[in-house]
């Protein structure tokens, strides 16, 4: 039982949080700008690399001044990194997506496909193609949490990094909810997602809404990227691409254009991927762990056949 919770369910939720944050950006872009942004995974990946660079620079700075123990927490280093990610988003939009705003959607999808390779290659040129260790060492379970839970007769083993990921995701999702339902720009984002044409003739500043979308998507993408490397403790240039399919699956599962749907979809896909490797029948994993990504694809295909509008009735085309 506790093995299930600690080694399958919690990791599934962690993965789900990462997918959820990535899928928020994808679904917002799809809803408001009306295209699937294939470069989203690569943006996440570059956010993680930037965060690592900020951390490394900080440590190097400490060493320079003779403090050998300077270390920056990823969640703090993430802040300047997220700002850079937002800049990348805005610049890509300005130079590569905006020229196609009035053209057929597929043109801008192609441009985003091109961006996917440009960004990845840029990261490979700057940081090299090899894996980089993000955080060293084995993450030990949080002692306080396991003590408290074992006193209650439970046995929850959760490293700090997972606690940070959960807390970070919850904060971001709550903040997103506040933004979309309580602020003027957030309501305008929903309005544009609802009908860009009507938003246009209502006098809503659609360009401003688009900028806001990239900013929100950028923050979530940077967070997703950092959470991912906090979890795996490893930076890889291919990780953005590997995330892409599950994130799209999450966005489609939740209903395109529905941020909460994306969160739910992300959690479901993350859990499904991890739980698929649980030995439900007999002693061997139900599905070989090598096929985890396949679970996301299978869910997506089933959704496209059965209910293309997604669980939460998003836009269907």
């Amino acid at each position: 039982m506790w093995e299930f919770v600690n080694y399958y369910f919690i990791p599934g939720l962690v993965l789900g949080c990462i997918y959820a944050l990535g899928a928020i950006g994808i679904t917002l872009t799809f809803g408001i700008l009306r295209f699937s942004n294939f470069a989203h995974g690569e943006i996440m990946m570059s956010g993680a690399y930037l965060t690592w660079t900020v951390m490394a620079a900080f440590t190097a700075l400490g060493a320079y001044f003779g403090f050998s123990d300077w270390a920056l927490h990823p969640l703090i280093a993430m802040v300047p990194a997220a700002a850079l990610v937002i800049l990348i988003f805005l610049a890509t939009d300005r130079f590569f997506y905006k020229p196609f705003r009035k053209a057929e959607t597929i043109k801008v999808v192609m441009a985003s496909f091109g961006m996917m390779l440009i960004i990845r290659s840029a990261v490979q040129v700057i940081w090299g193609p090899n894996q980089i260790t993000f955080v060293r060492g084995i993450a030990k379970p949080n002692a306080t949490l396991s003590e408290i839970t074992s006193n209650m007769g439970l046995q929850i083993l959760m490293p700090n990094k997972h606690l940070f990921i959960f807390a970070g995701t919850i904060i971001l999702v709550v903040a997103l909810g506040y933004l979309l339902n309580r602020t003027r720009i957030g309501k305008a984002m929903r309005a544009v997602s609802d009908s860009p044409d009507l938003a246009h003739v209502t006098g809503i500043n659609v360009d401003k809404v688009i900028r806001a979308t990239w900013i929100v998507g950028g923050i979530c993408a940077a967070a997703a990227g950092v959470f991912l490397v906090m979890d795996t403790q490893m930076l890889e240039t291919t990780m953005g691409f590997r995330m892409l399919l599950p994130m799209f699956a999450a966005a489609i599962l939740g209903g395109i254009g529905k941020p909460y749907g994306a969160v739910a979809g992300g959690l479901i896909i993350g859990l499904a991927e991890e739980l698929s490797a649980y030995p439900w029948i007999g002693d061997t994993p139900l599905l070989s762990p090598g096929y985890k990504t396949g679970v996301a694809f299978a869910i997506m295909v089933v959704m496209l056949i059965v209910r293309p509008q997604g669980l939460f009735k998003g836009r269907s085309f």
Partner: protein
Amino acid sequence: MTQPVLSLNNLKAGYGQTEILHDLSMFVNPNEIVAIIGPNGAGKSTAMKSVLGLLNISEGTVELNGENITDTPAQKVIEKGISYVPQTNNVFVNLSVKENLEMGAWTRPTGVEERLEEMYVLFPDLAEKRNQAAGSLSGGQRQMVAMAKALMVDAKILLLDEPTAGLSPKYRGEIFGTIQKIKETGVPILIVEQNAKQALGVSDRGYVLVDGANRHTGTGAGLAADPEIARMFLGGGH
């Protein structure tokens, strides 16, 4: 002579290369309801969209209170005080009624709350449904939301594109009633209508559009009484 609020002068316009309006002239005076009627494909809605800068205008001008606004982008036109209610998809279905109205007030700097209250007075039905999603309302109520949303700014003129299309007779009457109430608040209205008889009934003046040009002009009552027009559009029994 009073200066018209809105005037279209010898307009030639269309989508891309296709010209739909060949030679269109019309104006709306302060405190007037003006109806545009005509057969399908005559360019009624197109005439309205040309005001909003949604079309390619090749010749002619659009003026708002004497200011030339030809080829001004929609967002600027709306900031200048022209409010437009499209024929279909005219509310944000996933937003609540209140949020729809707030979006209508996007270009309004201050006094949104006060205006909201005014709208709930003008459209009492909406007051009690303010927190419902606009998509859950009936067609007539949606039309009310769309009109209220357009009035959230200090509109100099309201453009209504077929506000009663697809509505039951009960709602049609209600909409025309509201249109008159809006006029009483001092906002002139330009309205495109299929229901020519009813539209002319509430209008001060009317234009009959055929093939992208105005064929007949007159007072609402005068046009409604014109036998030729009656034969053309009013006998259809909408």
